């Protein structure tokens, strides 16, 4: 009895999450409570029947001993009740309930024996009640113990019968029940004892058989439930892993969630991810859950000294059931010191080969099962993708940063020599360092023109490249008042236009309310600078350039219209191509990069707008830029007094 617990123990799953007891364990306190409730009735029953039998049946009982037994039952039941309450309050472990049950059965046995003795010994009809007790014991105890208990009952009863027969124990007679006492009738005593023994043993056999059946079923249910619970947790963990993979590409976050989830779901003490460093020989901890700092600082994990890491990185899942006897570890003592008894490792493999090791640590030996291996492998596969993605993302970010840095350097390095050259030529040409002959001036001016062209080309190329870089950084866009930008650009060209004897007209049809668009002021400036500069450039003296701003619905429209040389029809479709220049434009202005309109189109598209062009050779050109307004204008457009009739389209 001492070596094996009397309770019919289930092969309980050892790894239960807190609050997740087996079904049998969960049942035990309620079984104990049930027994206590039943015993109140038994005690009261003994008292009531003792008091009732005399007046009703005219029998004389040993009232005082029987009542004492009844009150005794109630008394010890009260003690059990209080103990049970205390266990419940303290959330006592199932073992305490088990002990309580054994005590209860023992006390009931004693009460039963006394009850039989004081109600007539072998003649007592109460003997049948013993069968109940044997049945209850059979439910609660393991089969051998139940048989022991049944045999004990037989022995106790035989002892009462024999001692009363011989006269050692006084026979308590129920007056008026039997005309002839039977306790000295040898045949009767033998028959009762024989039948009682048979009944007791058969009941024990039947009840233990049935309850064992039930127990097995219950055990299966518990195991299935546990299996299901773990399967659900695994699914959840994998699902969460997938979500983590999608929702965040920050590597440390992804990995920390992965190790924490893995440890919790597997019900183990700790989990870690170690990644191969650039040397390819060291594994560096990147994400850790449940390990002490001291353990992490135990020393470098080196592949050439660590057979476990080598095996894992070769693609194997390695289960170390007992770290204290394994020869695979690099730091076995420190691992034991950390309280780790077994570990399970799975490789992390990226597109370009091994990345590192995912490892789960348990403080139990032989903890990890083949299912655990499958789960860790699945988690590692998922983690590998997350890590791969995050690394790729990091690379893109780094590349982007490098590109921006490059652009900045390029701007300075390429622009400054050209611009200094131009200034030097200009200084020379302006006569600050002595007189310049007409022929020298001609040469200088040619040089300045070529440098100007180079300068413009560099600026345009940088603008175009910058636009492409910004495209990825939409957050740089801000609400900009379009009319302010356009007006500023128009003002910039006033001097140039008047020098060329051109009329430059600016017309805001919805003046008085801001036209806000999501863009960058620099981008918009570049767009209208290029359009208006073209218009001024390709319009002959005495011509006219009109810039008109109007709105319709959620769209704002800026038209740049000139009475210039126009664009040939076959050139229009290639107009927005990089480096393309219409033949008549080349004729009129030798210098020109052919990038201006490409920049316009690129930039406007980036701001969610579009550009259209209509032109007729010799009559003029009209470019229209459409941009989405952030908010529809609050005013009804008809209410706004129009300053002038809108410029008529070509």
């Amino acid at each position: 009895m001492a070596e094996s617990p009397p309770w019919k123990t289930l092969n309980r799953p050892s790894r239960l999450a807190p609050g997740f007891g087996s079904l049998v364990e969960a049942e035990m306190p309620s079984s104990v409570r049930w027994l206590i409730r039943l015993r109140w009735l038994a005690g009261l029953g003994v008292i009531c029947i003792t008091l009732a039998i005399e007046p009703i049946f005219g029998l004389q009982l040993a009232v005082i001993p029987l009542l004492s037994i009844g009150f005794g039952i109630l008394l010890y039941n009260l003690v059990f009740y209080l103990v049970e309450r205390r266990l419940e309050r303290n959330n006592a472990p199932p073992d305490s309930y088990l002990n309580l049950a054994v005590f209860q059965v023992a006390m009931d046995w004693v009460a039963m024996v006394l009850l039989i003795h004081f109600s007539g010994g072998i003649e007592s009809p109460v003997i049948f009640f013993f069968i109940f007790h044997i049945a209850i014991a059979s439910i609660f105890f393991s089969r051998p113990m139940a048989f022991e208990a049944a045999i004990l009952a037989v022995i106790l009863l035989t002892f009462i019968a024999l001692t009363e027969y011989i006269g050692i124990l006084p026979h308590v007679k129920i007056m008026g029940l039997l005309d002839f006492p039977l306790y000295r009738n040898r045949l009767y005593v033998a028959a009762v004892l024989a039948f009682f023994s048979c009944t007791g043993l058969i009941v024990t056999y039947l009840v233990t058989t049935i309850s064992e059946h039930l127990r097995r079923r219950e055990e299966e249910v518990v195991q299935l439930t546990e299996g299901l619970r773990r399967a659900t947790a695994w699914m959840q963990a994998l699902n969460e892993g997938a979500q983590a993979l999608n929702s965040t590409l920050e590597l440390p976050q992804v990995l920390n969630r992965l190790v924490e989830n893995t440890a919790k779901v597997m019900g183990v003490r700790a989990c870690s991810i170690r990644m191969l460093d650039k040397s390819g020989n060291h594994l560096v901890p990147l994400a850790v859950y449940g390990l002490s700092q001291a353990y992490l600082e135990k020393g470098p994990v080196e592949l050439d000294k660590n057979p476990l890491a080598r095996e894992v990185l070769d693609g194997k899942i390695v289960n170390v059931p007992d770290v204290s006897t394994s020869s695979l570890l690099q730091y076995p003592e420190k691992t034991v010191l950390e309280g780790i008894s077994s570990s399970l490792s799975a490789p992390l493999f990226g597109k370009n080969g091994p990345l590192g090791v995912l490892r789960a640590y348990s403080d139990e030996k032989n903890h990890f099962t083949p299912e655990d291996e499958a789960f860790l492998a699945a988690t590692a596969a998922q983690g590998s993708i997350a890590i791969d993605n995050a690394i790729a993302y990091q690379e893109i970010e780094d590349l982007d940063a490098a590109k921006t840095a490059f652009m900045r350097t390029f701007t300075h390095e390429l622009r400054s020599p050209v611009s200094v050259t131009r200034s030097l030529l200009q200084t020379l040409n302006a006569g600050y360092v002595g007189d310049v002959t007409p022929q020298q001036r001609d040469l200088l001016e040619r040089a300045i023109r070529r440098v100007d062209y180079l300068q413009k080309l560099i600026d345009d190329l940088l603008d175009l490249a910058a636009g492409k870089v910004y495209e990825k950084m939409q957050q740089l866009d801000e609400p900009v008042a379009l009319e302010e930008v356009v007006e500023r650009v128009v003002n910039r060209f006033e001097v140039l236009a008047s020098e060329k004897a051109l009329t430059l007209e600016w017309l805001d049809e919805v003046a008085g309310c801001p036209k806000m668009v999501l863009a960058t002021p620099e981008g918009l400036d570049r767009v209208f600078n290029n359009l208006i500069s073209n218009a001024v450039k390709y319009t002959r003296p005495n011509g006219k350039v009109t810039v008109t701003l109007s709105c319709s619905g959620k769209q704002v429209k800026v038209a740049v219209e000139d009475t210039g040389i126009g664009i040939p029809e076959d050139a229009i479709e290639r107009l927005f191509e990089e480096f393309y220049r219409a033949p008549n434009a080349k004729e009129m202005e030798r210098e020109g990069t052919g990038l201006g309109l490409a920049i316009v189109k690129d930039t406007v598209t980036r701001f969610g707008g579009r550009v259209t062009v209509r032109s007729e050779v010799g009559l003029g050109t009209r470019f229209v830029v459409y941009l989405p307004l952030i908010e529809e204008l609050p005013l009804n457009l008809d209410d706004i007094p129009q300053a002038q009739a809108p410029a008529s389209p070509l």
Partner: protein
Amino acid sequence: MNQKRILLVDDDPDQRLTVRLPLEAAGYKVFEAANQVDGQVAVKQIRPDLIVLDVMMDTTTAGFQFALSLHSPDPNSEFKEFCNTPIIMLTAIHSTTPLRFSPDEYYLPVQNFLEKPVEPKVLLDKVHKLLGD
């Protein structure tokens, strides 16, 4: 006539030359410094009437830092007496870097920006205007 003094702070000697020649031709006395640190020393020695400053020197924003230290509103600033000395800032990066430079009076107390390449005439106009000549 008391010659007005102009300090040029720029790391590019050619660029300094292109600014220096027109200014000298216009009768100003011109001094040079090649970086922020030399510039700060020179300011105290020369006590210029005007400073022409390049934005990008040792670092991309060295010019700004110099301007900020010179025009600091801090009453205990070592450059307190120069807080009203006008600065013309030369910049080549106005439109093509993510850094937004604009003469925001709260951000930068610089009176004038001049885009490179420097047009001698434009430079002289600005200088005349700032010095009231």
